[in-house]
């Protein structure tokens, strides 16, 4: 219609234009003060000198980053070699988060697909079922998972009772337990965007492919998957990013051997190590990684949108 061409036709309007600044002011003030400035301060802190037993001395220092990347021996006067301890922790975090993402994808994609192909009336109920556990306190979920997986826990009891195993499987404090915990923490983030993408997908395309002699699995691989790819990528990012900095699952399910970034950072502020600049530096490195991933993702989504 004529108004559509003229006013853009969307719900975005200028009814309250004069009040705009007042409407946005509370959000600006709160978020600048409590979100933006703290992150900038953290960057500053990462370049300060540490105070023993927490806190900082306001003196510029590169010690935090130096400690992260280089080993200079016990007294700090050996020639610098690459320090592997922290890089290994980061690498393990990436690996664990990646494994959890893959696990989420393998289970989340079929689930999302199955839900999206239910009759329209029952879809919300399925979505509801998948999302309820997400709303249960993350700590409680992680503790529950630990309880279930214990050596004397119900899962081992069940498996022994069924005669599948003779002695309890040792699951707590393994990489697998951490991956399962991360999967459990963020699965809805995988399911929901894929679900949304499949729901929008035009199944006439699959029918066209089948009509042109493609098998079902070929149709899935060659027609459906490329169409829903943005949703799949979004899901992977939404699971990978929080998994990377997760604290509870590695802490409760992983134990000391499976130390991840979250625990390393926490230790600098809560534990005995107490090195604030180092914690701030580790946080900065984590944040940088996450922002790079998000930027690549945003660019890709923008490109995908242009193609459609």
């Amino acid at each position: 219609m004529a108004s559509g061409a003229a006013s853009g036709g969307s719900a975005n309007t200028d009814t309250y234009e004069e009040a705009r600044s007042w409407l946005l002011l509370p959000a600006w003030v709160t978020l600048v003060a409590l979100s933006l400035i703290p992150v900038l301060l953290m960057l500053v802190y990462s370049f300060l000198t540490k105070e023993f037993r927490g806190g900082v001395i306001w003196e510029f220092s590169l010690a935090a980053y130096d400690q992260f990347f280089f080993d200079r021996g016990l007294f700090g006067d050996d020639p610098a070699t690459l320090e592997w301890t922290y890089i290994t922790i980061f690498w393990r975090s990436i690996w664990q988060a990646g494994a959890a993402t893959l696990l989420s994808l393998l289970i989340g994609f079929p689930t999302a697909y199955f839900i999206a192909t239910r009759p329209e009336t029952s879809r919300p109920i399925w979505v509801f079922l998948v999302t309820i556990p997400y709303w249960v306190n993350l700590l409680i979920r992680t503790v529950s998972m630990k309880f279930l997986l214990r050596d004397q826990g119900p899962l081992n009891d069940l498996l022994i009772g069924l005669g599948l195993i003779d002695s309890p499987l040792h699951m707590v404090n393994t990489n697998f337990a951490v991956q399962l915990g991360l999967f459990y923490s963020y699965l809805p983030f995988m399911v929901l965007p894929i679900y949304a993408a499949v729901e929008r997908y035009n199944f006439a395309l699959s029918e066209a492919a089948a009509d042109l002699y493609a098998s079902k699995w070929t149709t899935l691989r060659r027609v459906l998957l490329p169409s829903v790819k943005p949703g799949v990528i979004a899901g992977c990012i939404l699971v990978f990013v929080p998994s990377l900095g997760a604290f509870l699952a590695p802490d409760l399910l992983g134990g000391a051997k499976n130390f991840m970034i979250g625990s390393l950072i926490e230790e600098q502020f809560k534990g005995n190590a107490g090195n604030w600049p180092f914690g701030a530096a580790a946080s900065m490195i984590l944040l940088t990684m996450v922002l790079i991933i998000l930027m690549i993702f945003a660019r890709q989504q923008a490109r995908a949108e242009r193609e459609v």
Partner: protein
Amino acid sequence: MENRDIAIDVKNAVKRYGTFTALKQISLSIADNEFFTLLGPSGCGKTTLLRMIAGFEDVTEGTIHLYGEEIANLPPNKRPVNTVFQNYALFPHMDVLENVAFGLEMRGWSKRDAKAKAGQMLELVQLTQFAKRKPAQLSGGQQQRVALARALAPEPKVLLLDEPLSALDLKLRKAMQLELKHLQRETGITFIFVTHDQEEALTMSDRIAVMSAGELQQLGTAREIYETPRNTFVADFIGETNLLEVSVDKIAEGRATCHLGGGHELTCNAVEGINVGAKVRMSLRPERLFISDAATESESLKGRVVENIFAGTDITTIVDLAEGPNFSVRTSNSDRGNRRIFEPGNDVFVNMEHGAARLLID
């Protein structure tokens, strides 16, 4: 029109969005108590003009007067003008009565008085029994009537209707057209109606403004616009027509003599602004033409029948003209006794009623 009040007077109104010009210098006057229609294809600027009168769009240049008072700078809630929106915009969280009473309450009426008056309005549109329903529980036609009652309740000086019938099915639309017309007469309120449906416009309006590409193409009664279209756009947009390219040879005593590309001569009424030597188009309405196997006068055009298209009330015959494009000629089925239907391939003559030909300015 000088002796009647002017309800809305738009002078040199321009609307620009950035570099895009939606309205180019529109001037028109709408008389008190008139059913006035803005007609044109989508994107022609008709809705923009309506929204400028309602106060939802600023006027980039020009003025708008409402009964002599300049309103271009008043916000919509300060203008005694109400709108029936295209999708009705009935407040979904209020029942029908509350919807109708809303405008009155905003004008400072007490809740009781507003509800009482709203009740009367519902009576007027025959929806009294639906007063307690929510808009979602009503049919499209009922919602339409609630929207009308709501807009009329505060007794606006002018009622604006933005394609209010477009969401209704054909039968309901026809019924509502009549109802709207009656309502306008009963209330005596000036109606400005926006539509892209030419039939709707012709049926309901006292006067029609035909718009295209942000410009006013022609303003007149339904008959004037249909029978004496000013230019090709109007001739083509309103109803069906056949167009011929002609050159004007002579103008005398109000008649113009023209010739076609092959030299064949035709005469028709002269039009102001078209002078001797001009190459212009001529419009011939299909229902004012008839076919015979012999030339009835010198003005008959020679051609060959291509096909007949049966359409219920009438038959359209497509004739390939010797000196022009394909022509359509409409024969009413009630005319069958007098008019012969020719088979494809027959050589025929297309004859025209006196005054059927109309020269177009551009």
